[in-house]
Structures are given as C-alpha cells and as structure tokens.
C-alpha cells in the first residue's frame, strides 16, 4: 500500500465541491452555536443560566435568532453612502469564511475513487493566503464605519484600521518563526513537520504562540481588544447604524474569524489534526505515495490512509479548535477592555520588537543546530524548547512589570521620585 491513487479530474471537481459545501456548512453551524456558547458561558461565568428556553438547553436559540434577524426591518440611514453601506457587511463576511479553506482538518480519507485530502484547497501559498485575506477584513469594517455617516461608527472604523494593521505586523512576525521551522508555507506541511519533530510547535516556539494568541485576539476584534466596538465608548462602533441581517453579518464575520483563528492556532502550534503520542496517524504526500516517516537510511515508510484514522484525527482537530473557541470566550468574559493608547503601546512597543527579536533568536538557534548537523527530531525540538522557554519566561516577567497597564499618573510620579521630589498629593496608593 502507500501507493497514491490520484483522483480523476471529474472526481477532483466533485469532491472539491462537496468539501466546499461541507466545510462552509460546518463553519456556519459552529458560528451559530458559538453565539449560543458565548451567551451560555458568559452567563455561567456571571452565575446566571443564560438562554435555555428555546429547545433543550436552549439549543434552538441560534435558529430563533436567525429567523428573527431575517424578518426584522432593515433601516438605511438617510445620509449613508448607500452603495458602500450595503457593501460593508459583504466585505466583512467574505474574508472570514474563505480563510478556513486552506486549513487541513483531518488525515487523508480513502474513497473508492481515490484518496481525498481533508482540506478544501491545499494551495501552495497556505499561510500567505490566510494573512492576505484576513487583512482584507479591515476593509469591511472601515467601509461600513465610514459609509454610515455617523461619528461613532466612523471612529470605530478608524480604530479598527489602526488596530488591525498594528497587530497584523506582530501576527505575521510570529508566523515567520513557524515558517522557519517548517521551511514551507503550506499548512499540510506544517502539520507534517510537527509530526516529524515529535512535538507540537507550541513547545519549541512557545513565545511565537504567545504573540500569535495575543495578535489573533486583536485581529478578531474580540475583548480585550474590541476597540472598534467599545460599547461604552462608541455605542457599538462600526455597526451602530446597521440592523437586522446586515447587523447579523458582522457577528457572523466576527465569529467566523474566531473559528478561523482557533483552527489556525490549533494547526500552527498544536499539531493540527495530529493525535499526540501516536505516530500511527502521521501521513504526508511524498513523491508518489503516502508516507509515515523516514527510516534510518532515509527511505520513506509508507502509510495507509484509513477511514478510522480520518475520523480520529478529525476528532482531535475539533477538540483542539473547540478548546481555543472556549478560550476566546473565557478571555472575553474575564478581561476588561484596553485603553486605546495601551493597545497601541502593546502592539508597537512590546509585540513588534519582541516578535522581531524572537524571529532572530529562532533563526540563530536553528542556524547553530543545522551547523552542528542535529537531525530534525526530539533533540532539535528540545534545544529550541529550552531556548524558547527561557525567552518566554523572560518576556512574561517583562510584561508583568505593569508597563502596559500603568497610567500617565504613575509615570509622572516615577519621574518625580527619580528627581527626588515627593509624590503628587491626593494619591494614597502612590504616597504610601
């Protein structure tokens, strides 16, 4: 076995269409139930029960919400730029749902017509495609904010553009560390390399994971980075003027982004569909067949795709993605919103230099390891884990020095203290 049975053109197109429909349906379903999960988890965190009336445990609530949003009246502000006002939600939702296409969600599935990759489109540009499309999401927000002709909506759009562009930099830089280790940009190979290394990239690239997690929170405009919405400051920011299904579109887009970001976190740092401590599921397309790895002599060991492995790996992928979805909700209902200057400070002065330095560190460590001809395996990963672990600890201690959340008053007082002056009056916390 191990011989690859290629799909004929007809079957390739058919299978691709089926995958597109299936993945889109599943993502939309997850998005719908994310709204329910968000409401129920937030309720439980606040010692409430949340919506539990529509269907058993409130499971039909998203359907009721959907029907309500469709039959509600849509308003169109008289002074809005109508074309862009309608275009906004469409632009917001499009990149959110197409980015999931390149994420592999299970091991290859053997079918009578050939072995099917469990990824909608295994494009060779993988991560670059995701970075390119997720950057487009900001256009929907900025356009809808501007087209609403409302100062709060406009401010929200403006903040979104500043924030998303700032954090895109840190996001891209943290991905570069992964790209260095993988040596390719396709996500199928990212999963394969993690199986090869024998450990998930969260260990050898722990700091990149921290950066990616923070940047992904900011990119999806979720609390504590929901500057574009900021209910208490900007009403609801860019979607203030939207109603009914157009309003719903922004929410679908936000949750679709969360799903994509969670799937991406799972794929880049938690082995994708890989099942830990088991090499039986390792599988990669190598030359003319599926391989599990290479033996001592460097000859490929063939692998046999099976339905069972596909299902198991699908389960592993769903579990990992589900964990990050829960983490997103959990963080949202724990942390308060950053101040705008804190967001910018964290993005430009902490994450950007940190990620840059970390890329250099990873590249340097890998250069040393390659020079010493350490094989790509546990030792290689172990050294990187040690280096990254120390760096991550140092970084966490650095941000723990209250740099990011200290206000102007404290800085002023610190300056006064250095100058040998007493602290400003009226602040017991400082003067004590």
């Amino acid at each position: 076995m191990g011989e690859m049975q290629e799909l004929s053109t007809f079957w390739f197109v058919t299978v691709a269409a089926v995958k597109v429909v299936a993945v889109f349906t599943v993502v939309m379903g997850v998005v719908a139930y994310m709204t329910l999960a968000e409401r129920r988890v937030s309720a439980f965190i606040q010692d409430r029960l949340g919506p539990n009336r529509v269907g058993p445990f409130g499971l039909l609530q998203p359907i009721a919400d959907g029907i309500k949003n469709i039959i509600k009246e849509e308003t169109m502000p008289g002074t809005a730029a109508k074309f862009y006002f309608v275009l906004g939600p469409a632009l917001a939702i499009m990149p959110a749902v197409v980015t999931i296409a390149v994420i592999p969600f299970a091991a290859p599935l053997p079918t009578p017509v050939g072995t099917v990759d469990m990824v909608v489109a295994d494009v060779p540009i993988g991560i670059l495609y995701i970075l390119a499309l997720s950057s487009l999401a900001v256009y929907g927000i900025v356009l809808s904010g501007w087209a609403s002709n409302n100062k709060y909506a406009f401010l929200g759009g403006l903040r979104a553009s500043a924030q998303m562009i700032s954090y895109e930099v840190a996001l891209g830089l943290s991905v570069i560390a992964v790209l260095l280790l993988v040596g390719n940009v396709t996500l199928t190979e990212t999963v394969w390399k993690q199986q090869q290394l024998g450990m998930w990239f969260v260990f050898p690239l722990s700091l990149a994971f921290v950066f990616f997690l923070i940047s992904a929170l900011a990119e999806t405009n979720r609390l504590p980075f929901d500057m574009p919405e900021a209910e208490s400051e900007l009403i609801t920011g860019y979607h203030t003027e939207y109603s009914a299904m157009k309003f719903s579109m922004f929410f679908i887009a936000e949750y679709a982004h969360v799903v994509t970001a969670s799937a991406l976190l799972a794929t880049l740092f938690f082995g994708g569909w890989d099942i830990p401590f088991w090499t039986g599921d390792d599988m990669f397309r190598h030359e003319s067949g599926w391989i599990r790895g290479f033996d001592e002599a460097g000859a490929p060991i063939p692998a046999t795709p099976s339905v069972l492995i596909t299902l198991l790996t699908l389960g592993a992928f769903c579990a990992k993605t589900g964990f990050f979805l829960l983490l997103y909700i959990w963080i949202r209902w724990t942390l308060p919103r950053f101040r705008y200057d804190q967001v910018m400070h964290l993005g430009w002065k902490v994450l950007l230099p940190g990620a840059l330095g970390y890329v250099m560190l990873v590249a340097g460590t890998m250069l040393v390891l390659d020079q010493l001809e350490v094989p790509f395996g546990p030792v290689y990963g172990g050294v990187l884990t040690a280096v990254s672990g120390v760096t991550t600890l140092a970084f966490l201690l650095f941000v723990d020095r209250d740099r990011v959340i200290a206000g102007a008053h404290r800085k002023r007082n610190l300056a006064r203290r250095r100058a040998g002056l007493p602290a400003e009056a009226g602040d017991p916390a400082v003067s004590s």
Partner: protein
Amino acid sequence: MAISVKVMRRPEAGRTSYMRATLKGMSLTFKHLVRPTKVTLEYPEEQPDLHPRWRGTHRMEVHADGRPKCVACGLCPTVCPANCIRLTGGEDDQGNRYPIVYEIDEFRCIFCGMCQEVCPVEAIHVGQHFENAEYARDRFVYDLDRLMEQDHAVTLLWDPSDPRSE
C-alpha cells in the same frame, strides 16, 4: 492644572501586574463557570420566596357564610394616601352595616398597606401576590366580588416589638 482634569488614581509599580492579574482573573472566572449554584430564578416554574411583609394585590376576608367581613366603616378610603378605594356602605334589616360598592383601583394603589393597618375588623388586606397582569385597563379596578375571590396569603402586619419579623 485645569480644574476639569480628573487625575486617575493608579496603583504604584509592583502592585499591578499584567500576566499575574490576567491569570488570576481567568482562574476566578473559571471557578464561577463550573460553580453549580446559580442566582437565576427560573420564574414561571420556580416562584420567589416572598417576604412575610410583602405587600401586593388586595384581598377581602369573608365570613363562613360568604359575606364580606367589611363593615363599611369608611376608615380605609379615608386613610388611603392614593385615594384608590371607593366605598358605599349600606345597612341590612338587622342593622348590620355592609359594603354595597367596594372597589380598589390597583393602578392608583401604592401598596402602602395602610388600609390593612387601619381596618378595625381585619377585612381588607394587602397580600403576598404580584402576578396581576391583565389584558384590559378596566380589569385593574377590583370590585368586591373579585377581592373576595382572591385566595393568596395575606401580608403580616408590622409588629413594633419585632421590627425585623424575626
């Protein structure tokens, strides 16, 4: 400094933390997430425990033979601060006074309970009841028959020797 500038009081260095505070907060929210006791009262199925001195919709006490205990003395319309009680008294052939008309406008009522306090024969009471929604406004004027039909528990009067009802 301009007088309108508010100086935010922020903790000193070393007292705030970014990571530790985040992790602390996450663990706190997680504890609440898994905590089985919730404060939500699932209302129509679960009823709230009303305080013994809760003052709600009125109720007229009746004698064993079904006559209202009210003797139409006129004290409750006199004492009512919202002026929501309409009473016309009458007298039967044995000389017993009884209400011909006794109406309480529950919209005007402020549920102070003074009618119950003032009643010499313990006829009119405010009750431990709050589910009094209606489809029409005129249904909120309770007449004598309606007041006698009510069967909810009545409010406990305030006892000066036990001010907290213990």
